[in-house]
């Protein structure tokens, strides 16, 4: 059984008198101890999907179809009280720009302590205090810095503190939405190395949401590519993006364009064409393939019929009329 099983989930936003479907019948799984990357550009629905798992969608959004089960328990329709018991203890999250979410007038160790005691009001102060130092050490912050205020930390250290806080109640799944976006390259690499080692040492499962293919490539075993609310391709990171001499075997033209748009120091020194146009308006129904208007290889059928998901190789799925089974 998968740790997280998202089945046919749709997320709708009420906007004015109409509605907008940000996530459209998406299914995916995260296995125990696995790192799954969700990649796509702004507005593709990846953040809405991430927020749907802990049921933290904004008030004007709702899950209109599907089921989300975590460790065998169905989350859709669960009471707020039950959800509060699962949040942080089963599933924790690090949001984009989370390092700015620390309380500026409270010392960092106290904020982490609060996260522990909020979920276990009987926690022994001394045990909890020791746990705070253990967590900070885990994320590479020396005990001597524990009593600092957030402004005394760099961006990278604040992000580490947020990760320490997310791990306070030993969750089995960590959802990280753009965990490194606002950071410098070296700090980015440090945070990614930290997430990777936590997964290996603590058995933490990871759902990492990012627009940055290289960050996903560095940490994740599998990748899900989203475009305009749907999954267009999924597979192992190694197969889809290529790694260590293995060429990328992405099948969907959108995935290919994303890969080409990322300058690769190991590849050719030439700029990709880039994508023209915009993603479609999601507040109106779409017939055919959502990517057709921006796709160089679009055919007649692409505008008439939405492509079904084709298994191109074991574990590798692409939703494109042009996708073909890979010869092993």
């Amino acid at each position, binding site marked *: 059984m998968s740790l997280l099983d998202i089945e046919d989930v749709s997320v709708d936003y009420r906007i004015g008198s109409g509605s907008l479907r940000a996530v459209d019948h998406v299914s995916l799984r995260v296995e125990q101890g696995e790192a799954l990357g969700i990649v796509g*550009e*702004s507005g593709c629905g990846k953040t809405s999907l991430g927020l749907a798992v802990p049921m933290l969608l904004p008030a004007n959004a709702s899950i209109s179809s599907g089921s989300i089960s975590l460790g065998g328990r169905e989350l859709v329709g669960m009471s707020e009280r039950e959800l509060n018991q699962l949040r942080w203890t089963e599933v924790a999250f690090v949001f984009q720009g989370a390092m700015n979410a620390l309380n500026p007038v409270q010392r960092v160790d106290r904020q982490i302590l609060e996260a522990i005691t909020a979920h276990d009001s009987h926690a022994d102060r001394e045990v909890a205090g020791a746990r705070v130092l253990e967590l900070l050490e885990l994320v590479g912050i020396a005990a001597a810095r524990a009593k600092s205020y957030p402004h005394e930390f*760099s961006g*990278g*250290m604040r992000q580490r503190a947020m990760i320490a806080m997310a791990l306070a109640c030993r969750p089995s799944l960590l959802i990280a939405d753009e965990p490194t976006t606002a950071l*410098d*390259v*070296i*700090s*980015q*690499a*440090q945070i*990614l*190395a930290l997430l*990777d*080692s936590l997964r*290996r040492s603590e058995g933490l499962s990871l759902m990492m949401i990012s*627009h940055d*293919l*290289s960050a996903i*490539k*560095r*940490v994740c075993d599998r990748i899900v590519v989203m475009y305009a609310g749907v999954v267009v391709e999924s597979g192992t990171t190694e197969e889809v993006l290529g*790694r*260590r001499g293995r060429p990328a075997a992405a099948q969907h033209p959108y995935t290919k*364009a*994303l890969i*080409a*748009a*990322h*300058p*690769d*120091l*190991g590849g050719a*020194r*030439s*700029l*990709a*064409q*880039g*994508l*023209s146009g*915009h993603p479609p308006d999601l507040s109106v129904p779409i017939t055919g393939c959502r990517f057709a208007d921006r796709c160089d290889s679009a055919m007649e059928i692409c505008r008439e019929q939405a492509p079904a998901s084709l298994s191109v190789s074991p574990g590798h799925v692409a939703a494109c009329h042009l996708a073909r089974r890979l010869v092993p």
Partner: protein
Amino acid sequence: MNDVSAPSVKGLIDSTINVLEVRELSVHFAGRGRWRHRREVKAVDGVSFDIAQGEILALVGESGCGKSTIALSVMRLLVPTSGRIISGGEDLATLRGRALRRARRRIQMIFQDPFGSLNQRQSVYDTVVEPLIIHQLGATSQERRSMVMDALDLAHLRPPERLAEAYPHELSGGQRQRVAIASAMVMRPELVIADEPVSMLDVSARAGILRLMMDLRDRLGTSYLFITHDLAVAWMVADRIAVVYLGRIVEIGPATQIVDEPAHPYTRALLSVSSGEDIGADGAVTDVLPGETPSAANVPPGCRFHPRCPLFVQLGEPAICRSEDPALRIVLARRSSAYDRPPGVHQSACHFANEESS
């Protein structure tokens, strides 16, 4: 001036003419704290470089390294503490008033955030025509209109007549950055300073903006000072790369050489995180450069990189790294080097730049 990586010469590009010469530029700010304990923040600390006509020089470094401060000094939006900024035979560092305003026509800037840098209440036309009005260019409004339309067309905002009437909220991020480029190009500058011009854009829009900038260089001979934290992007667009660490250029040279034969340990660290080389054989992410960049108010003695330097540890902590601030020196070509180049083009500020790294 070198012509190692001179672009395809198209008449407008003359790599023997420098549009900008920066010499020993320093920008120091007064630090915080009680006056006895106040430390100067050395944001830029003795930086020199040239940009030839039609050349793209990338300044690469992390936030706080001083790369944006260098850009703001060249624009004279900041007054440098010392050093010279030579452009068009004048020293911008000392110019004032009308002379400074005239010199600024030659240098235009593009900022990182196309969502914040455009006035939401101004149409594209009003945004692009504004610099012409400020600098009193174009004799009639008709002439100015045709200059604006040309600039929009140059920036691939087509059809210009229709896009001129648009407002920023109607435009995508990529289109907004094109408006910023058009309002820089309407002045026909010799040099454009682009500060992280693509880092706020979606990946699919980035390539288009970078292509546009390179295309303008080829067609008009525009030079660029391109500021980025992303070594891979710098490598794509720039002729030469200067790597900046804690207010100092630690390595400078042709882009391909910086990437293929980096001589400074900091450049190597940046490269390994940019290329995914820090992934070990079993797929585990291996160690990256430890610690944080020190504050510019507290520059380490000797080589400013030594407290984080893997080579320093590897070589058994040589005393010279702690005591002597290394100057930029010529990197000797490796025997295996694929590059044929005049001497002095590739320089690195490391005492051990010419040691073979393992």
